[in-house]
């Protein structure tokens, strides 16, 4: 089974618009993290949300987590051309009911966001 699947696979918007990306996963998690990757470059950490949190904000980013639906969303408000990148969710899965984390991240395929000036 696939963990951390994002949709849409590609999103094209105009500068100033909001961008929403969704992520679904299949197993119990300790936390979910969102990363950004500019073409061919490294992964930049954006935000981490823990399994007992429902919403988190950081600047223009808003992340929600619904553990009952095993889904998360990333909202980027007032997008800029510089936000053009691939966005990945990554889950830190639970090893057991005691809450032990594997400590490894399972990434999705990502959403390619293009923001037109």
């Amino acid at each position, binding site marked *: 089974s696939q963990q951390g699947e994002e949709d849409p696979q590609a999103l094209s918007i105009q500068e100033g618009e909001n961008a929403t990306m969704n992520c679904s996963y299949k197993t119990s998690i300790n936390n979910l993290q969102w990363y950004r990757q500019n073409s061919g*470059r*490294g992964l930049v950490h954006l935000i981490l949300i823990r399994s007992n949190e429902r919403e988190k904000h950081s600047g223009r980013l808003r992340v929600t987590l619904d553990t009952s639906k095993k889904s998360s969303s990333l909202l980027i408000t007032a997008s800029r051309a510089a936000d053009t990148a691939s966005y990945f969710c990554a889950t830190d899965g639970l090893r057991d009911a005691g809450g032990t984390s594997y*400590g*490894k991240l399972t990434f999705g395929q990502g959403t390619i966001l293009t923001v037109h000036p």
Partner: protein
Amino acid sequence: EPEVTQTPSHQVTQMGQEVILRCVPISNHLYFYWYRQILGQKVEFLVSFYNNEISEKSEIFDDQFSVERPDGSNFTLKIRSTKLEDSAMYFCASSEFTGGPRETQYFGPGTRLLVL
């Protein structure tokens, strides 16, 4: 702001050759990781390392791969006999220890490995 660094940024090697990829994690971090991303594919976990031993490894991380923390700052990934399918971007990451590897993982810029 502290960051994870990796060297080299690019490496080209012949099939069957050994390569060592180097990483300097963030200085107060105690958990270290290697991931790889084959072109156009997902980022995949390879191995995690804590307290001088492997704590978790994926099925990709076979006997051809090894990791080492040779001193107090470097963390290396060695591929003994490279194959064409090892061509990928390799990312090192590190995280703080707060009773378990449950924190943000900070990634380096990656080493792009090309096996010919």
